[in-house]
Every structure is written in C-alpha cells, then in structure tokens.
C-alpha cells in the first residue's frame, strides 16, 4: 500500500535528466543533418558557459519557488551587484574580498527586503519583487549612466578561465547547486522550505517559523543573484546597469519549472533545476550552431517550455489517482 521511499522525487528528477538526454540527442541529430557536430569541444564549452549565469539565478529561484514564492527582481539584483562589485574592486586585486562581501551583503539585503515584505506584510511576491525590481531600476538609472567600475584581470578569470573544456564559472555553479541540494536535504531551514511551500498553515502549526524560512529563501535567492552579478562583472570587466534589460528572471523561472519544480511550491529540487538550465543551454547552443533566426529561437523556446510543463502536468495527474481495487470492465 505504500510506494518505495523517495521513489517519487527520484522519478521526477530522472525524467528531467531523461528529457535533457533527449534534447541533447535531438539537438545532435539536428546539427548533424545541418552538417555540424554538437559535441565538438567548442560547442561543449559554449553549452557549459551558457549554463553558469542562468544556473546561479535558477538555484536561488528554486528555493523561493519551493516556498511558493517568486522573485522577479533577480535580474535587477544581478545588475546592481555587478556594479557594486566593479566599483568596489576599482581595479585593485586587494579589494576583491571586500567587493565579494559587499555584493553578498547588498544582494542579501535586497532578498531580505523581498522576504520581509512578502512574509510579514502579506504582499503577493509577484508584486513585491516586481516593485523591488522597479526600485532598483530607478536607483540604477539615476545613479549610473552606464557601465561603471573596473574589475581587475585576476577576478575576470572567474568569467573566462576553463579547466579543460569546463569553465570555472560552471564549476562554481555546480558546486553551489550541490550545496543547495545538501542544504535542502540536510538542514532544517532547507527541509522546512518544502513544508512552507507545501502548506504554509500546516508548517506554521507544526512549529515552523514560516516567515523566517521564507526570509531565508529570499535572502539566499538574492545572494545567488549577487553571485550572478559577480559573474557578470567578471565577464564584462566592469559593472553594467543595462544587464537588467535581459529579463534574466524569466529565464531563471523557466529553467526552474523545466526542472520539474512545481510553481505552486512544495515539490521539486535543485538537481532538476540544473537539468532545466542545461536544457535551455543546449537549446541555445543548437540554435546558434544551426544559425536559427533569433526570433525563431524565441518561438521555439516558448513552445519547448509549454510542452515540457504540459508533460510534467500529465504525470502529476496520473500520480494523484487513487489506486484501483477492481479491474476496469467495459463501460456501461
């Protein structure tokens, strides 16, 4: 009468990785027909590079979505962080630790603001984080008239160095993802995120400090956006306010949902998110290798996201069905 422990979560994640394999295979076939090789080193490097930025944002986004929240301000936070990083470093290697600390502090505070308004003032996170994004945008537009600050060459290595075909930034992203998986599984705060997203009243009645848990998710989400900002600074060599125009937040949400995390919270995880990020990166690389029109890319992305979620939804329906007691006969 009971299923194998953990079979569910594993099953969903396995499905996502299966989907990733499928996308890779389909992409490889498509590029091969087109006369290319998706697994050429250059393309592999390209794929891995593209995972890092969305990856950082999507890891934090997974935490807030697990808590049944949302963060539409991460793109703005990342842009702000890139400027904080670049202006604090100001070309000096010695300033790097200070800059990293400043970025984590600022981005964490942005997250704390989102979390506090959402958890304690009862504002829908969609509105909270949209508003926060606007506030940061106003600040950036007023304060910075363009790129500012100077990132020393040493720190730019974060954005450009590779170990073999694997960019350092992708390794850092994977390490952070591993840490997030551990965090969700092995710490109380992480474990409680599932409870808060699953049913906030139940969580509260069980003695979980739900507001604090939600705060933590938002703070960590802010901080991963900060790390994304550090990566932007490393790759740009400077800080850029304009980075917010790229709608990174929607990419991150798409990756999380592609990764099988329920937008309604309480179910999913970072392992799936990494696969979701990878699927988007593979698509981008395939589109690039095949020279697909940039506007066709948007169309295909939209279709892929909807299709994937429709498939997950179908599985979800099957799963919630009661177990039958009698064999089905013909209809009356």
């Amino acid at each position, binding site marked *: *009468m*009971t*299923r194998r*422990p*953990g079979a*569910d979560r594993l099953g969903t994640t396995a499905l996502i990785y299966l989907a990733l394999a499928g996308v890779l295979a389909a992409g490889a076939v498509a590029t091969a027909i087109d006369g290319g090789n998706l697994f050429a080193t250059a393309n592999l490097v390209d794929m891995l590079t593209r995972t890092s930025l969305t990856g950082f944002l999507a890891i934090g986004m997974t935490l807030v979505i697990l808590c049944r929240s949302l963060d539409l301000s991460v793109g703005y936070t990342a842009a702000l962080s890139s400027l904080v990083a670049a202006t604090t470093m100001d070309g000096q290697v010695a300033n790097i630790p200070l800059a990293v600390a400043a970025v984590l502090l600022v981005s964490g505070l942005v997250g704390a603001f989102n979390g506090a308004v959402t958890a304690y003032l009862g504002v829908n996170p969609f509105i909270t984080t949209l508003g926060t994004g606007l506030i940061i945008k106003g600040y950036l537009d007023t304060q910075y008239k363009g790129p500012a600050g100077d990132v020393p060459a040493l720190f730019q290595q974060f954005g450009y160095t590779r170990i073999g075909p694997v960019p350092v930034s992708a390794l850092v992203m994977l390490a952070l993802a591993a840490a997030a998986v551990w965090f969700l*599984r*092995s*710490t*109380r705060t992480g*474990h*409680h995120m*599932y*409870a808060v997203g*699953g*049913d906030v*009243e*139940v*969580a*509260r*009645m*069980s*003695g*979980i*400090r739900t507001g604090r848990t939600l705060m933590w998710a938002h703070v960590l989400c802010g901080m991963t956006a900060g790390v994304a900002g550090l990566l932007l600074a490393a790759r740009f060599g400077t800080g850029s306010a304009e980075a917010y125009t790229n709608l990174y937040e929607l990419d991150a949400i798409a990756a999380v949902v592609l990764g099988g995390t329920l937008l309604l919270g*309480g*179910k999913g995880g970072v392992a799936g998110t990494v696969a979701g990020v990878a699927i988007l990166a593979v698509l981008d690389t395939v589109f690039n290798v095949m020279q697909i029109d940039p506007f066709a890319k948007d169309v295909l992305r939209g279709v892929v996201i909807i299709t994937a979620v429709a498939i997950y939804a179908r599985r979800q329906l099957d799963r919630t069905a*009661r177990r*039958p*007691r*009698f*064999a*089905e*006969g*013909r*209809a*009356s």
Partner: protein
Amino acid sequence: MTLLAMRGIDKAFLGVPVLSSVDLTVEPGEVHALVGENGAGKSTLMKILAGVHTADAGTIELGGRAVSFTHPLQAQQAGVASVFQEFNLLPELTVAENVHLGREPRRRGMIDRRAMAERTAAVLADLGVDDLPPQAKVGSLSVAHQQITEIAKALSQGADLICMDEPTAALADAEVELLYGLIGRLRERGVAVLYVSHRLKEIFDLCDRITVLKDGRLVDSVATADITPDDLVAKMVGRRIEAQFPERLPGTEPGEVRLKVAGGGNAWIDGIDLEVRAGEIVGLAGLQGSGRTEIAEAVFGIAPFTRGSLEVDGKPMRITKPRKAIAAGIALVTEDRKAQGLALWQSVRANARMVLDANARVHSRRRLARVSELLAGLDLVARGEDQEVRFLSGGNQQKVVVAKWLAAEPGVIVLDEPTRGIDVGAKHKLYTVIRELAAEGLAVLLIASELIEVIGLADRIVVLHDGRIAGELPAGATEQQVMAYATGRGPE
C-alpha cells in the same frame, strides 16, 4: 498539581468577542472533554493553547508556571501538542518527516534521517501500530493512517498535554476503537488529553471531566460521573432536545423508484445493486474506505460507473460528469464542505445560487426567487445574504450547501456525511430537513460514519464492505447488525 490552568481568557476577532473570561483547568493524566456548539469558542480556546492565536487577556499556567505563546513552536516546547480538526500533514513528505516536522533530529547540525525513522518507528510501536512504514509518503495513506500519523506527531513531542479537535470526525467506528485504545495508553502514562468532540457517546466513554462552553463563555465544568447525556446537551444548547431524531413525517410512503443502479461498478466498487424510491431514505453504512463515498461519486458522475446500468426515474442514464447528474435531477452534498462545497470568499447568496448559475438546464427565475426562502427555511444564522460564507459557523455553512442543492429542486439527493463537524442544533435541523425532503417525495441516499445517524433516519440500510454490498437491513436494525456486515462477518 494542576497541569494546566487557563484563567480569564478573552479573545475577539475584528472587534467581535469570541471568548470572554473563560477558565479551564486540566489535571495530569486526565481526559478532559471540551464541548459546546460550533461557535461556542472551543476551537479558538484550543488554538490559543496551541499558540496559533494569542489571547487578548487572561493567564495560562502550565505546571504552575505562567506561559505566553505567540507561536505554535513555543506551545510545543512547553509540552502542549495539538491534533487539529483539519489534517496538518504534508502529503509530499513521508510519515517520519511529518512526525518530526519542525523538530527534526540533528547530528552535527544536519538532519539525522536515520534517527528520524527510528524514533518514528518507536512511537508507532508504542501506539501499537505495526502496519505503517515511517518512510511511506503521507499522500498515499488511508485517512485512518493519516490520523495515526497526526497522533504520532503529537506524541513524539513528548507532550504532557495533547489537545485533540474532533479526532474521530474522519474515522469509521472500528478506527475509533483504535483511538480509544491510544487514549487509554496515554492516560496510563500520565499524559492529559483535552478532547473536543460533538459525539456524546465518545465523551461519556472516554472522558473524566467535561467543560461546557456556550457563546464564548464558560457554562460549567463537571465530572463525567455527575452528569447525564441529556443534561449535558441541555447545558450546551441551553434547551433540551427531546428526541435526537425526528419521527418520520406523516404521509411519507415509498413511491416510484427514482434512482436505480444495477450491477454498478468501477475501479473502486463492484456489483452495486441499489434502489431508492421517492419518499425513501436509504442509509449507506460501512467502514472508512468501504466504498460509501465512491458510490456517491459514481452516481454523481465524479468517478462514474464503468459497469452496470443506472436509471433515474425509470430512464437509463449515462452519468459521466456532475453536470449530467445535475441535469438528471441528482444532488450531492459532499463530505468536505470547505474543499468541495463552498466558495468561502463569496457571499451566502452567491453560494446558494451557484448550482442554478452553473447549469442552464436547472436555472429559472422562479428557482432563483426561492433561494432566500430556502435559506430562511433552514434557519440560517448570518448577518445577511451578502455576508461571506467564511464568516459562518460550520453548521451554517452546511446549511448554505444544502440550500444550494435544494435550489435546483432535485429528485434524488445524496448526502455524504452531512453532519460532520457541526453543532448539535444544526445537526437536529438537518435531520428535520432530511425528513421533510423525503416527505416531499425526494429519494434520499444518506451516508454517515456515525451509525446512530443511519439507524435513526434511514428506512433501509445498505451496508458496504470492501467495495461491495455486504447486506441490507430494515429500519430499526441494531448497531451490532450493521457492524457484522460492515466488518465482513455476515449476518448475525
């Protein structure tokens, strides 16, 4: 020494007083009943004790120490555990994770999953439960096992006082026995139980002391031995209910067959032969999971019959969704009124006319005009028809659900646990209404976990076991006869 002493507790919501100057004392090892009509303030008092709400005034002492809770966690740490009326479980998590939610054991700062599983197994063993694996996902469990998980959760907190709000509301009689056993064990271990229930039988079976609340005020606190059930009811409602079940109304005679199922079955039920005549009340009895609700769902097209035939008023029907059932003149008052019956943020009126609004085939101006009359006829207590139903008590909410279905003037009405979790006054009103419906010529199919209801109201009782009809009994059957079929033992 007194375990719990609450004194002078006041609480108001939005300026409306819910509790005024309530006192409650509980001794160690005592099973203490908290009774009163819905809206009397029992749940609020319990939630204050659990740290869900904070009292506006008054003091709480636990083991002689003054305490003040602003969060459920503080109550748990002080030794007060609670089992609420609605299940407080997360279906996506395992039994072990649910039992330890908010208090996960840690080793070197990390959650110790092995310890979690071991401790859960130990608590379950302590409760004498051996068929519930700690790693099972709660969403896949039966209602009874979920209830056990709830109690295990409360117990594992090492509580001195366990509050239970309607713990048997979702349980069939056999499962209630299991709960009796658990409470007995708790009492032996010196754990006090604060027991909120509407079921007088349980209260007199289990409890040492009874505290009665009415309209947010303390009426009395007496030893169970010193009071009779009739007196207790009188204290709760302030008036004596002469007969618990109203007599059949004169002139109510079974007429034509309005609902007929022959050989009905689907994945959960099989071989269902059932007839309900106009003016007849047929009771469906059986243990939790025996297929009672599944029959209701099949008749109403939620999980339709895939085998057999179904006739309404002599016409064969294929009812594959609720719309078709409604068009055929069938109504279903569902088991869970908050999840399935009401749009809580909408007004009384919007809810009461929902079936008419949703179905062009039953909508008419005449029926719309009758809605107010129906609500009044059910003795609805509300500030007005514009009031949102979430502000109503459980009993009044249920009256809105009934009104919503009666507005469509059905020929067949299926009532699934219509009196679950509602106060005595509202219960009695519903019993009367059910009798009146039969008198008007409706075919009534009544499902209830409380056998006494089925026995007291039904003209015939169909007993289910394991998805099949185990037997049929006439009016006036005894509980023993019903249980014999329900447990699969056959006729006594």
